[in-house]
């Protein structure tokens, strides 16, 4: 493995939806400024795992977490941890684009405004910067005041990415960000991820293995709530250590 700084360390993580256990004893490291892809058949717990990293699962009634997730060495499940500031550092892009029913500008400015930033000039500058980074600026620069709901699916997803990076998180969690998009929009998002890697640590869920192979440095394979193996993307795709991984990658199931 490449020698890299650990950004997030997950230790013996179990997750329960009520009585039903969805994640079993997961331990893995996520390295700084690298792209980590999570692959596996649908329903194997990828989203659940991702949502444990910014405590999004807190919102689900009757759910329960065991184990620890260290972010820069501090366990985010410590009772003293401020979830709001954690989520500012660990941004998230969802599977289905979920822009707010507000203007394009307001969508990107949202994260800044809820932080209490009032400086109009600063906000405008950040909005422009983020939209440029998300490769959306040219599409929308003349209609920032229009509703975000009028954008196409691909544009909406790039808007959600812009919205997430506007608050300058350290980690960006992406849950199948391209699954609802056409190939051209997908390609744009992939190129974007490549760019974003310079500034962010990225964890991306995908069930598209070619995509994982193209964009990630590390790949973790999930199956039935367990992390079967995690290694550099090259190793996983050329000489996987476990039979299940090989079966999945070669398309024998899933």
């Amino acid at each position, binding site marked *: 493995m490449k020698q890299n700084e650990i950004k997030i360390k997950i230790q013996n993580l179990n997750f329960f939806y009520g009585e039903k256990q969805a994640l079993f004893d997961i331990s893995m490291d996520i390295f700084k400024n690298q792209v980590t892809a999570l692959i596996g058949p649908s329903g194997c717990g990828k989203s659940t795992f991702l949502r444990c990293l910014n405590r999004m699962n807190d*919102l689900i009634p009757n759910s329960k977490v065991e184990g620890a997730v260290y972010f820069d060495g501090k366990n985010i499940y410590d009772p003293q941890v401020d979830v709001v500031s954690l*989520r500012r550092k660990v941004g998230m892009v*969802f599977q289905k684009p979920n822009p707010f029913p507000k203007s394009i500008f307001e969508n990107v400015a949202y*994260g800044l405004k*809820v932080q209490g930033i009032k400086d109009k000039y600063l906000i405008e500058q950040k909005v422009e910067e983020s939209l440029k980074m998300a490769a959306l600026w040219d599409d929308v620069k003349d209609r920032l005041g229009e*509703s*975000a709901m009028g954008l196409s699916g691909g544009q909406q997803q790039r808007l959600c990415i812009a919205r997430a990076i506007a608050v300058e998180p350290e980690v960006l969690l992406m849950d199948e960000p391209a699954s609802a998009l056409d190939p051209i929009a997908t390609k744009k998002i992939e190129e974007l991820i490549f760019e974003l890697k310079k500034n962010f640590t990225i964890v991306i869920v995908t069930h598209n293995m070619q995509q994982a192979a193209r964009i990630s440095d590390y790949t973790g394979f999930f199956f039935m709530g367990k992390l079967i193996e995690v290694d550099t993307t090259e190793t996983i795709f050329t000489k996987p250590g476990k039979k299940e991984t090989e079966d999945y990658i070669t398309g024998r199931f899933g």
Partner: protein
Amino acid sequence: MKYNKRLTEKIIEYLLFIVAFSALTCVALIVIFLFYEGLPIFEKVGFKEFFFGKYWYPTSDPPAFGIFPLFIGSVLVTILSSLIAVPIGVMTAIYLAELASPIVRKIVKPIIELLAALPSVVIGFFGMVVVAPFLQEYFDLATGLNLFNASLMLAFMSIPTICSISEDAIYGIPTELKEGSFALGATHLQTIIRVIIPASISGISVAITLGMARAIGETMVVLMVAGGAAMIPESIFDPVRPMPASIAAEMAEAPYRSDHYHALFAIGIVLFLFTSAFNLVADYISYKYKEKGSATL
């Protein structure tokens, strides 16, 4: 076999059409009747005198048919009751949809919906025997049956409607939208104020308009607790006589096809236009936001 099936379908189709058509016809006939019986008053009394006349003395000699005090009574009762009902109804809805635990929600929501079914005569009775004596004593008034009491009771009536419909709208906001806000580091309160309320504003507006429409047309409560004085009130503790109360109280004593009788029907027309306007506004609001999303908010 096949022929039979198609025939049955046709028959059902026609039956439904006839039912729907006769219902519509009945409503249309009522409206026509309303105008037919109401309009003749304007042969005797001018529009201006009718709408802006300050005196409603339908039985004196000569009679005065100025509905302005009645109209103002209706408007004030509606405004005041909305000022009470809207904040309480909407805030309760937010609490139930967003903050209450699922168990509390499960228990409280049906109770509120049950309150919406409370007969208005019961609410009126409550206003008469409980609220009125209390107001009279506590504020040292000549009568506890007044504008304030009526507004309070009407608020009582519209809160369940406002709350229940708003709650549905707020509860129906997709989780993804809320999660999007939380993921950007917004607190729950920020999410409620900046995302949830704007996104459900069309439903909330419809709830408010329907709640208010219910208050405008309400007859029994205002008949029982508004005090019945056909004058322009000077304080919220003065008695008033909203339009529906006038019609209900006087219809029995107005001789058939007399001027008084026609005048009461004309009040009915005003009331009808008033509530229709409200419903149109409700429709327009829900249409407008449904089309575009609440992007401008």
